């Protein structure tokens, strides 16, 4: 157990190093941030001063080493554009994204698991077929287009929901939250829906295939041979078994959604980390891009580790050490 965690942490250090190097070089290759930052009126002198302040005059490997050195001290650099520490900038956007992702996942589970159970337990019924085909449609809709259609439908045509932004927030323990006010909820609905639909589909399919699979297992037959009631079979035997993959997938999806919220946040002008990333890429705000990707990577490492631990806790069959290999 301890070895397993240690091994994972060792691996993640390697991954973080690799990521930082790749991203550093990539953003370097995109373009020269000074060109965007310095006003055209600025004199050559001012320009050079700026380049010097940002450290862009030094060779790339030196810039990278400096960055690494600072990163070890927990400093991922200052945003070129905002002049704030990149981490602080990203952290300040985190609650918005997390809120979005949390509710998207919650919705996905609340809708997907029951639908999946219905579809999986009666896998030959018409309802099941409709659910399964619907789930295919669910992730065939490109995110951006779906967002547009939601806006067109719910905002422009029927005027039910606001189109964008985060609405009124309430600060709880220093974290601004939308879902505590009516206005906030109204703003939350569409982005959450947009982000959630493919995951509903995923949850539905996962549950359905799990349930369809599980209900044919010998232990279900054995349970029936023991005279266990159908509800008991679903609750104790089927649900318990498929919950394991579902919980782990939810964990992994959490990370993916944080990354994929980028598009939803762009379409709905949701002030989260994803939007920050897109603007930062466009503005060549290298420290923010690098910090963002590193933080996401770190987050992934943590999430994956947590997921593995949860999985191990949930599934008695797993021996952690076996998987360290």
């Amino acid at each position, binding site marked *: 157990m301890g070895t397993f965690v240690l091994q994972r942490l060792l691996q993640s250090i390697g991954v973080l190093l690799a990521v930082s190097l790749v991203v550093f070089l990539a953003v370097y290759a*995109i373009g020269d941030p000074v060109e965007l930052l310095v006003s055209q009126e600025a004199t050559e002198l001012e320009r050079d001063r700026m380049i010097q302040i940002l450290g862009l005059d030094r060779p790339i490997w030196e810039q990278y080493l400096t960055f690494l050195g600072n990163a070890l001290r927990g400093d991922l650099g200052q945003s070129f554009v905002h002049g704030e520490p990149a981490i602080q900038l990203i952290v300040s956007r985190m609650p918005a994204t997390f809120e979005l992702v949390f509710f998207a996942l919650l919705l996905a589970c609340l809708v997907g698991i029951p639908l999946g159970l219905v579809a999986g337990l009666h896998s030959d019924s018409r309802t099941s077929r409709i659910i399964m085909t619907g789930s295919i449609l669910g992730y065939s809709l490109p995110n951006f*287009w779906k967002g547009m259609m939601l806006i067109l439908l719910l905002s*422009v045509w029927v005027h039910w929901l606001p189109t964008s932004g985060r609405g009124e927030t309430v600060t709880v323990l220093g974290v601004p939250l939308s879902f505590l006010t009516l206005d906030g909820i109204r703003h939350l609905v569409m982005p959450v829906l947009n982000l959630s639909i493919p995951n509903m589909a995923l949850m539905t399919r996962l549950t359905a295939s799990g349930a369809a699979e599980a209900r*044919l297992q010998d232990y279900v037959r054995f349970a029936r041979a023991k005279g266990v009631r159908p509800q008991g079979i679903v609750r104790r035997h089927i649900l318990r078994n498929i919950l394991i993959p579902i919980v782990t*997938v939810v964990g992994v999806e959490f990370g993916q959604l944080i990354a994929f919220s980028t*598009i939803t946040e762009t379409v709905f002008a949701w002030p989260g980390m994803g939007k920050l990333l897109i603007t930062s890429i466009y503005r060549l705000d290298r420290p923010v891009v690098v910090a963002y990707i590193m933080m996401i990577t770190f987050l992934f490492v943590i999430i994956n580790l947590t997921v593995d631990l949860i999985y191990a806790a949930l599934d008695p069959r797993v021996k952690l050490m076996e998987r360290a290999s």
Partner: protein
Amino acid sequence: MSRPERPVDPMFVPPLVKTPRRSFNLQRLKRRPSMRSAVIALAVVIAAGLLLPLLAPQDPYDLNSFSVMDNRLPPGERSMDGLTFWLGTDSQGRDMVSAILFGLRVSLLVGLTATAIALTIGVTVGLFAVNFGGKIDALLMRLVDFILGFPSILVALVLLAVMGRGVDKVVFAIVAVQWAIYARIMRAAALVERRKEYVEAAQNLGYSNGRIMFRHLLPNSIGAVLVVATIQVAHAITLEATLSFLGVGVPVTRPSLGLLVANGFEFLLSGEYWISVFPGLALVVLIFSLNLVGDRMRRAFEARRA
């Protein structure tokens, strides 16, 4: 025993355990999709996408064949030269019907080539990993984990931001993020196969590594990969559309469906819905049908294995 990986694709939900023999029943049997019909359906969709542009009234890539004077005409209007625009025109005066047909082809081509290349790379990597094992395997799989650990859209976005626009570049970016999927599936499938006794028999008969790899392991483990590939075509198309939507995809003068949608985005709210809604619908229909066919193939494949 390890936890199920995140399905690289929501379509590809791995079964929890192997299907026991008593798994099928009558209804399911009746509807059990045969691999052949699914493949035919897929071929039809692809052929249609590739050939339909021949029917297009105009060449939307030839800047001389349309005029900005005809731009943003609603569906059914006629051009100055008497051509009827059944689905209207876009902001450059392109006939939407032609643009959608050509866009469909670009989307499909990107999806197919990207998938084909990624598949080839992934399969080779997966096979090598299995065959050489040990350090090489570990290294390759760490690389795969590394790539799969990243949200594909971000990687592709950064790559394209570096490289600029172009169909070839989009394909490259998609390949870069997708080959790892095939590598992992191939490796998993080949690992299972390699434990089978016929591989030992092959070793026992003194066959070379290459022969075992490509003549024995490959044909037996490629099935799962091919099934995933059909679904990945749809994925690649979505990815391309999204990238084009974000402004880093194909060139503006050669719009794919995604780019058409993006171009029409700003006109959506002013009532010129056709510029983005029709290509969007075409995109959805394309992806949906590919996914549907992919799903059938997957089911047929699993049914066959069971």
